[in-house]
């Protein structure tokens, strides 16, 4: 994914990132432990994952990634608030937020960019325009010719770049990050790319789009383009290429296995991270019910509120 990688290269230690679910490359670039993501994908609770996959302080990513926004668009106002905190404290840090082109239709996108414009917050919002919102084509998402032009509604500068051109993405992201860092406020970047695969396992894109379309975009595969470039420049030799791929694959498999290796999350973990301090009578009571149930006792025999004896 050239978009995530190009932007990642424009980030600096201390920056914050509010991703969507399409920036695996960004996470990898900043050494976000893949094994943890893997364990999370397997349905483990984050407390449990951290306990079983500790990360030494010195290995902690220097860019902070918050969990991707399952509820699309909510990360944009959050990112703007994060940037506002940096600005008000005179920190020269930048906050990055990623959304898909479909997510620009959500009110959160509007709220976030408008606040960013008025409050002049040091942030960069990247619209990863892969032309599809599950089965809904971009033309059905907005009548605007580009997503970059949506910045005009908020008095913000914007750029539109080839999302499959690593360098183009990096240049735009670098310019935007520099603007933010130098106190000149927010920028919107539209990175034009394509979702070659199905959206997810329940999707079947063959129903709503042609194979030629996907095939055409295959030819623009950013990875191949980058490889060709490196090879032509002599930076990448054939034998190295092999080696690199091998290394990547083995490390990937390793990390995935480590994530898979995490034991199942104990049920009571679900009660860990809510209110600070006393969670309150009802939650304490429900916790006791679950404990009883798991211990094979009857959780419903308290009729006096004095607890399960």
């Amino acid at each position, binding site marked *: 994914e050239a978009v995530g990688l190009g932007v990642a290269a424009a980030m600096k230690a201390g920056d914050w990132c509010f991703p969507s679910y399409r920036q695996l490359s960004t996470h990898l670039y900043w050494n976000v432990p893949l094994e943890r993501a893997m364990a999370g994908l397997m349905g483990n609770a984050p407390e449990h994952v951290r306990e079983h996959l500790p990360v030494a302080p010195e290995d902690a990513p220097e860019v902070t990634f918050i969990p991707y926004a399952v509820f699309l668009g909510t990360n944009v106002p959050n990112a703007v608030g994060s940037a506002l905190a940096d600005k008000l404290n005179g920190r020269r840090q930048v906050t990055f937020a990623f959304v898909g082109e479909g997510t620009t239709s959500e*009110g959160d996108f509007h709220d976030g960019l408008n606040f960013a414009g008025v409050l002049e917050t040091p942030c960069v919002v990247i619209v990863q325009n892969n032309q599809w919102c599950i089965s809904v084509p971009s033309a059905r998402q907005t009548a605007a010719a580009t997503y970059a032009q949506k910045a005009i509604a908020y008095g913000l500068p914007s750029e539109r770049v080839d999302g499959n051109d690593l360098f183009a993405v990096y240049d735009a992201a670098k310019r935007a990050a520099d603007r933010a860092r130098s106190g000149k406020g927010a920028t919107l970047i539209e990175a034009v790319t394509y979702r070659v695969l199905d959206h997810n396992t329940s999707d079947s894109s063959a*129903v*709503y789009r042609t194979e030629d379309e996907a095939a055409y975009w295959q030819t623009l595969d950013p990875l191949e383009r980058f490889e060709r470039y490196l090879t032509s420049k002599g930076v990448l030799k054939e034998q190295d290429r092999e080696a690199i791929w091998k290394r990547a694959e083995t490390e990937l498999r390793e990390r995935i296995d480590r994530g898979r290796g995490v034991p*199942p999350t104990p049920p009571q973990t679900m009660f860990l991270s809510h209110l600070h301090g006393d969670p309150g009578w009802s*939650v304490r009571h429900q916790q006791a019910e679950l404990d009883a149930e798991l211990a094979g006792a009857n959780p419903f025999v308290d*009729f006096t509120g004095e607890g399960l004896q």
Partner: protein
Amino acid sequence: MNKASESVDTMQEMNLVGAVNHALRFELARDPRVRLMGYDIGPIGGVFRATEGLYDDFGPERVIDTPLSENGLIGAAVGMAIRGERPVVEMQFLGFLYNAWGQFIYTLSNLHQKTGGLLDVPVTIRTTFGGGIKPLPFHSESTEAYLMHSPGIRVVCPSTPAEAKGLLLASIRSDDPVVFMEHTRMYRAFREPVPLGDYTLPLDRCRLVQEGDDITVIAWGQMVHHAVTAAGATDASVEIIDLRSLAPLDVEPLLDSVKKTGRCVIVHEARRTAGPGAEISALINEYALEWLKAPVKRVTGFDIHFPDNQTEDAYLPGPVRIGAALDAVLGYQF
């Protein structure tokens, strides 16, 4: 309802999602004012395929794919409804409705009262809810309590394919806004004969699932089936009521049943505190206290956001937990 009886005879086996699809097709064909609205409901037929084939057969003016905004979706549907259309909105997941809470409360549930009855808002919001398929966070919500506390709307929840057909037809034809809750875990859980004709069910009536004398269990959606399983495992005589209409509540049959059995367990996936069961328990205690032989117990999810997949099974009520509640309440003596 007469119409129904005519044609009830011709049946076809369907699962829940099939019955929904069939009901939508039936209404699209019957009433030109009916229009489906939502994202991903067109060519792909919805992420759960509930609208499969309808775009091809009725075209883009009857099955309308919209931009990705839940609030815009409800807002536009309300605007169409007050102009005489019968929009049927697909809210992909109940958890996404939070983004549309503004339009939901300010206009959908309120314009009729606000205009003193001048404007009708006959929008049907089809939405999925409930746990079991272990998808992403906020894709397993059972926050019907938010809906039950909101006036001016109806909320119905079918627990079988045939009920889905009868209730969905009635929802679309209702002049009130209706939220129609479809349990994701039950979409393909089982099949049953569904009337192919013009079959409607009343929107505001609960359903007696099985009669009993010792204790009353009140549930809806997926939980009805767990209740039946749990009841089968006790030798007590358990009366099970499928609430079916969450708003307005069909209170009388609930009170009558508890006055008969003297004991009651309420089951729902929703969080307990200020959840649906609280209202039912409060009503029973307010109007049937003299008949109670034991406190009313609530078998529910816990007071947290729906948890991670690996702890979900311990979060959701199932036959075992329901059985324990039955034992506890049946065993209680003053």
